[in-house]
Each structure stands twice: as C-alpha cells, then as structure tokens.
C-alpha cells in the first residue's frame, strides 16, 4: 500500500464528514475569491490600448465644476500631446434609477482614437459621426436593453435640466462594454451653448512626455478662473476608488476572518478524525512507522481535503461570475468581474497552507503519544 492510497482510504472512510468539510471550505473560498476579485476589479488596468499614455484634465476645485471649452485649443498646442478629447458626464437616467448606466457627451471624432482598445465597425462609426443626435453603446449595454441600431433612446437629465433623445447608430466592443456616448455638440446646443466641458482627455506621444504634459497643463492655467488638475488615467481611476472609503481595510479584515474560519473548520475535522484513529495510529507505530511518516500521512490527508475545497470554491467562483451578470446586479458598479487565474492560484495556495496548518497540532500531539498510551485509550 502506497502512502497516497493510504491517505485516500482515510479520506474516503468518513465520506459524509469529508464532503461536509470540503463544502464548507469551498463556500469560504468562493467568498474569498469574490472579495479578492472586488479588489482586483477596483484597480483593474486596461491590458491593451494606450492607457499609460492617457491623461485626464479636470477642474482643480472639484469634478462637479466644468472647464471652459476654450481650453481645447490651448491643450492641443501643448508639446507632446498627440490627441485631445472632450468628455462630459451627463448622468442621465434611462427609464428609471434602477436601470442606471454611465453616459457621456463626447467628441465623436476622437472617441475611438482615444480609447483604441475599443472597436466599432467602420460603417457604424461613420453613421455615428454624421448625425448630431447619434449615439453609440457598448455591446453589453445594448444587449441588456435589447437595443438595435436605429432605436430611439431617451435619457432624462439629472444634472442638466433637460431630456435628450438619441438614435443608436453604433455598438462597440472592448474591455468595458457598458457605457453610452453621444455628441457633445448636441448637449451644448440643447443647453444654449454654455461652452463647458467636464473633462479633457489627452494622449501623449510617448510615455516620457506624460509627466511633463501634466506639469505644463496645470502651470498654464494656474491663477486662472478655472485652474486644472491633470493626472494619468490610472491615478484618476484610483482617486475614485479612494473616495469610496477604506475598502482595502474592510476587505482585508473580512478576508482574514474568512481564512481563520476555514482554519477552524478544517482543524476541527482533522482533530475529530485523528482522535477516532488514535488506536490505529498506535498500531501503525507498532508496525514501525516513524513519527515523521505518521505526521506526513495526516497532514497529507488534511491538505487534500483543503485543496479539494479550494478547487471547488475558486473554480466555482470563476464559473459563477462568468455566468452571472455582475454589472447588472451591482447597478453598474462593476462593469467587469472576472476571477483572474492569479486569484485562483492565491486561493489554492491559501487552502493548501490552511490544510497543512490545521492538521499540524492534532497530528503532532498524536505522533508524540507513546504506543501504550494510545492503545490504552478508548475511542
């Protein structure tokens, strides 16, 4: 009998207990994967495209206040700037609050060159550019409301005192397929031309230009009526996450509690299993098995159980979140929610460590017992 088959026999001995333990660990690891994915998604970087070249210019005082449209020409002339794009949060509501999604007024000419990780068929792009009331939507967004090209979509303004009607002319694909874009000129016209822009987006020619551009732009508008704050797209995103509060601490503390719970459950199972087998272990010793060997067999058993739970939990989470539309259920909060392979690996590593740790104490105690002590004890 090999060591592996010995471990397996023991695992299969009390199937109900093994199953319950695996399920319990699995649920905890499912939860842990979810929490870790929340952190990953809040800090997700775009793997393709020019994210590292993009900068956001906004009003220094607050994001709530707009910038003058006239800044556009000045920004275009800043050395190292390849592209300037305007983007204003419209914050309109479709049907009612529960169906909220992100919607922006933008410059249709520069939208796709700026976010070159997003793709749209050329004929749809041409149609979008041509018509003032045209709009484009992400694939996921269009699917959610079963929109087809040519549909009329009305957004009720919350920040602006007006409702706007749009005709859907394009559906784009990319990493985040949940936003809605329309012509800035259409909004300006409806508002009787206030000449305001929420944010300007810049694309630098090279990564080396990025810090220089940020300094230059902010210096340019220093002491003007509308001072600017320019930062990289990444810093801008992380700034938003920081505003949500101390999510990292919250998730870290919950996660550590979850890990500790798994440890308790596994340790309890192993302790019960080992106690029941005290006499058998004594027999093994009589047969000449060393302490280290016995310890190894017991820890192996516990590691297999914990790993099984780990595979169930992390794999289950991966599968679950690929089927469930998290974007819809979190009211647009998480446009993307993917349990990454790195998260799965981390989860499995944790499960393995917990498995080994939880068998250590009871297994050590039993391996230290003398044969006579163990044989005398009654189960």
């Amino acid at each position: 009998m090999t060591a592996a088959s010995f471990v397996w026999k023991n695992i299969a001995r009390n199937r109900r207990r093994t199953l319950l333990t695996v399920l319990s660990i699995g649920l905890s690891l499912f939860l842990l994967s979810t929490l870790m994915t929340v952190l990953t998604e809040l800090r997700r970087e775009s793997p393709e495209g020019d994210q590292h070249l993009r900068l956001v210019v906004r009003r220094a005082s607050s994001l709530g206040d707009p910038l003058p449209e006239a800044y556009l020409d000045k920004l275009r002339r800043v050395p190292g700037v390849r592209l300037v794009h305007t983007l204003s949060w419209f914050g309109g509501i479709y049907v009612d609050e529960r169906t909220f999604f992100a919607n922006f007024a933008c410059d249709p000419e520069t939208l796709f060159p700026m976010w070159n990780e997003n793709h749209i068929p050329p004929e749809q792009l041409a149609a979008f550019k041509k018509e003032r009331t045209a709009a484009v939507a992400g694939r996921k967004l269009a699917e959610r409301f079963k929109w087809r090209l040519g549909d009329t979509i009305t957004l009720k303004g919350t920040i602006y005192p007006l409702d706007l009607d749009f005709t859907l002319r394009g559906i784009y694909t990319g990493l985040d397929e949940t936003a809605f874009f329309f012509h800035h000129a259409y909004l300006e016209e409806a508002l009787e031309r206030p000449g305001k822009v929420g944010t300007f987006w810049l694309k630098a020619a090279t990564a080396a230009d990025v810090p220089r551009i940020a300094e230059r732009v902010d210096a340019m508008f220093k002491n003007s009526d509308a001072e600017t704050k320019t930062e990289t797209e990444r810093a801008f995103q992380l700034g938003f996450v920081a505003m949500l509060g101390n999510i990292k601490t919250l998730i870290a503390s919950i996660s550590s509690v979850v890990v500790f719970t798994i440890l308790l459950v596994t340790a309890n199972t192993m302790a019960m299993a080992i106690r029941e087998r005290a006499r058998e272990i004594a027999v093994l010793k009589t047969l000449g098995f060393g302490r280290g060997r016995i310890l190894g067999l017991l820890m192996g058993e516990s590691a297999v159980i914990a790993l099984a739970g780990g595979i169930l939990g992390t794999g289950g989470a991966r599968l679950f979140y690929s089927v469930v539309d998290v974007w819809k259920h979190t009211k647009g909060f998480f446009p993307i929610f993917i349990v990454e392979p790195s998260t799965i690996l981390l989860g499995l590593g944790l499960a393995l460590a917990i498995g080994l740790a939880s068998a250590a104490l009871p297994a050590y105690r039993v391996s230290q017992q003398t044969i006579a002590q163990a044989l005398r004890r009654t189960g």
Partner: protein
Amino acid sequence: MAVPLAYNFRNLRVRAFSTVMTVLSVGLVVAVFIGVMALARGLEEALVTTGEPLNVVVLRQGSQVETSSAVRREALQVIQYLPGVATDAAGTPLTSPEVIVLLNLPKRADGQGANVLVRGLRAKGLALRPQVRLVQGRPFRQGLREVIVGRPVAERFQNAGLGGTLRFGRSQWKVVGVFEAGRTAFGSEVWTDAGELADDFDRADYSSVLLRAENTAALRAIVQRIESDQRLHLKAQAEPEYYAEQTKTAGPIKILGSFMAVLMAIGASFAVMNTMYAAVARRSREIGVLRVLGFRPGSILLSFLVESVLLALVGGLVGCLLALPIHGLTTGTMNFRTFSEIAFAFRITPDLLLRGLGFSLVMGALGGFLPARLASRQPMVETLREE
C-alpha cells in the same frame, strides 16, 4: 419526557476542542454579519437623522440632490411668500436660499482627495438646523471669507482644523469654527456665507431653498403649491424624506453583508453538522441507554437539536462580543447621490445583536437537525451490543 438540559451542557464540555472550534466558527460568521450591518446601519442613520420634520427642501425639477440643482432668484420671491411658511420673531419668512459647491480636498490620512460638500447659507439657514451646534471658535462673519466646518471634516481633512486655511474658488478661506451636528450628514460639510461662495464660483442661481412650514398641514400644502406651479419648475420635499432617499447609498453594503453572511452561515452550519455527527457517533451507546431508560425517539431528537442550537448560540454570543469593539469607529464613504464624502460611525444596536443571535440559532438548527434525526432513529438493541 425531555432529556435534561444538563446532559447537553456536560456533553459540550466533554468535547472541549470540538466545541471551542465550532463555537468560534459560528462566532466569526456572526461577527462579520454584525460588523458589515453596523457599517450600513451607521451610514443610514447619519442620513435618516439629518432632516427636521417641518423643513422643506426645494430643488429643480428632475434633480435628485442639492449638488445638481438650481433655483432661480425670482423663484425665491414666490416661495418665501407662500402661505404656511413659518416666520421668525421679526416676522420675516424662515427661508434659506443656499449655494452648494463640491470641493476636492486632500485627506489627512493618505493625502488622497475626497469630495466635500460646501454649503453657502445665511443666519436663517443656521436657525433652520437646530441640530447643529458650534463647539469650537465662532460663527463665520460676512465679507471675510471665513468658514466653519463639521467636526468629522476638521478631523479628516488637511488644513481643515480650527485656524487652518482652505484654498478654493478664488480665495483663501479661514476656518474660524468647528461645529457638532450629532450623527447627521451636516457634520461632513463646510459652511460659509452664501453670497461669497456664489461670487467665487460664478453662481447666478441658488442650488436649493430650505424653508420651515408652520405645521404638517401647511407643509403638505406648500409642497403641493410648489410642485403644481408650472412656471417654477421646482420640486419640494420634506427634509427627512429627502435624506431618507439617500440611504440607498447603504444598499450595496447591505447586499454585500447579507451575501457574505449567508455563504459563511451555510459553511458554518456544515461545521456544526460535522461536530454533531461526531457527537452522535461517539454516543451511540449512551443513546441506547437513554432509550432503554424510556426516553422516546422524539425526545432524543429534541435533545440533540437543543445541544446543537446551544452550541451555535454560544457561538452567536461570542460573535456579538467580538463585533462590539467596532461600535463607534468612524469611517467615511462616498454618498453616491451627492457625490460627496459622508463620515459616519459603525453602529451596533440591540436589534442588530438580536439578529446576530437569531442567525446563529438558525445555523445551529440547520446543522443539528440531520444528526439529531440520525440519533433518534438508531436501533436500540444493536447500539448497546456495540463494543
């Protein structure tokens, strides 16, 4: 006849290791549940306690919050002379036209920016909010670019303490006072003179108007008058209602809390089940003896179920104790409606603790039922014959 409770207590003590492990697993689940719910509760309470029952908030039609609202100056003339608006001792109507600006200020903790709501108002605005009390310094004076700040703002943001200087708009603003606003959302705001704030941010319109109604009947009439006046394009709402709507911000936290609690609870009830199955297995002879003594299978089932529930309840108590220290801890998050930071404290209320205990009871019952049923169905004679 029921099996005495003392039997269950003794059994829990005999299997000390398993009991402690199981109690702790249940306890941790309850602690997480209470902790997350206390977070949501604190946030909700900060918003719910903010409104005064007779105050009315007037906003632009279609806007949901003051930060995105605008009320024309002409409209104020109409609003303040509506019948039913309360007056002060001098006989002038108690209406407060206010200017709201969102500011991005760096936090003390990490230098990261967060949005803070700046409210421009006049003396009547202060009079309409009796829950706000100056605890340090003095009120702001007109024409000097002075501000007063809520205590959480003073504590959480750079240069926002008494004597500090905030730079926004076109000026430097001196912090001359710190106010206490109970647990309300006003504590997360910066207050200054309405005219100066409007000047610095080129605001021609007010953001909102707050007014006091004479009584509840007058309040309803005023709301109706404002909403039905087509020229105004305004909407009116009782102040408590306005803030209650914002409690939706706590929704995602509650969903997260329930989701985690349910998952962890199922996991923990499996752990309880394991422990109880082991208990039944080890005590099969005892069960046989109990049966011989005349206890019915129903009594055995009940006895094991009670033992399991006891185990979980102790866990629930431990969980409550573990969660208690977070009560009163202050934290902040973004209010998604106003887009500004709101500071609040974790709040553990007795009913939350009771819910935690109830939760542990359910875990105990779920985990204990199957093992208890197994115990009650064991054949009497064979169990006694076992070694």
